[in-house]
């Protein structure tokens, strides 16, 4: 009896599990060259690239501002990318559940790199490596702005609108 039920229970569990996860986006694991492409590819959108991690408290605190920005301007010409520094081992058990729970629709990437010194300056020379940090690239790559800090309340939208003016 017990033996015959077991696979059924497992199947049921798997079905429920995958169903609950079906809404969550696939998170792409990328390397620095992919990030470089993301930053510098020609686009008619204004790019906002936020560097964060689920373990970074100030990042999580400012995250709602980014999600709000996405909701408000994604249909206009915002391209928001959330670049997570979570460890790739934590993709399934930390990052994916977090993204699903917060219902994040903006594109999330996990940057799986270890040799940070090799690329931080390439993202921006003024970046010390601390997160949160945010890079804004205006459409057509016409200008850039790098901000290494946590945005104060309601600050992100102002900075963004001022930047794309």
């Amino acid at each position, binding site marked *: 009896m017990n033996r015959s039920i077991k696979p059924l229970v497992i199947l049921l569990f798997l079905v429920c599990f995958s169903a609950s996860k079906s809404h969550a986006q696939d998170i792409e694991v990328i390397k620095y060259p992919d990030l470089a492409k993301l930053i510098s590819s020609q686009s008619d959108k204004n790019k906002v690239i936020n*560097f964060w*991690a689920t*373990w*970074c*408290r*100030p990042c999580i605190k400012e995250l709602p501002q980014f999600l709000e920005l996405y909701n408000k301007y994604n249909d206009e010409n915002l391209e928001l990318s959330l670049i997570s*520094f979570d*460890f790739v081992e934590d993709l399934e058990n930390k990052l994916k559940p977090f993204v699903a729970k917060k219902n994040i629709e903006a594109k999330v990437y996990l940057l799986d790199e*270890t*040799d*940070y*010194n*090799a690329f*931080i*300056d390439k993202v921006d020379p003024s*970046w*010390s*490596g*601390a*997160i*949160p940090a945010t890079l804004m690239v205006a459409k057509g790559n016409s200008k850039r702005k790098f901000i*290494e*800090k*946590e945005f104060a309340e309601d600050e992100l939208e102002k900075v963004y609108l001022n930047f794309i003016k």
Partner: protein
Amino acid sequence: MKKNIFLVFGLITMAAVLFASGNKEKIANTKVGFNVGDMASDFKLKNVDGRTISMADYKDAKGFIVIFTCNTCPFSKMYEERIDLLNQKYESKGFPVLAINPNDATKQPDDSFEEMAKRSKNKGYSFPYLYDESQAVATAYGATRTPHVYVLNKKPKGLAVSYIGAIDNNHKDADAVTQKYVEDAVDSLLDGKAPKVTSTKAVGCTIKWKDA
């Protein structure tokens, strides 16, 4: 006469605007804190064992490995064993590790002095773990993240900042490290040479600053 006054007033305003904007640029472009080659300031900070420690106490030291770190940052945790190994390797050679936690405990309760003392005891730290409660030391040094290392070389003139940056080039796996930045810097100084690599960058947790 009136015209002249306007002219003078106008010029003063223009000068003020230019000065202000120029100043702003300057502030934005100048890194606060020490650069490689600067003389670092000493400090007096409370260690987890209750003693107050300053670099002047270390009469025989040839220099110091000052590391801003904390209890809570995942990178700091990944590196704490390597920090201890650094101290075990270099304390006897004249370069002790001095770890400093600059995080505001009201923002990050697990970085309180009590929690620091607990962690140091539980993990058996061989190095002093100092509490920068006022954040004055982190500010003076220009530390931005944890872990953030400053290698200081004792010279007649003072403590010359000889290296600023990461411990090595692989936070995840000590065995996969191909560049031991701090060890290389200290080894060079022990050889009486200038370090080849004097600054590196790494992703780390932002120091949790007190609200201004």
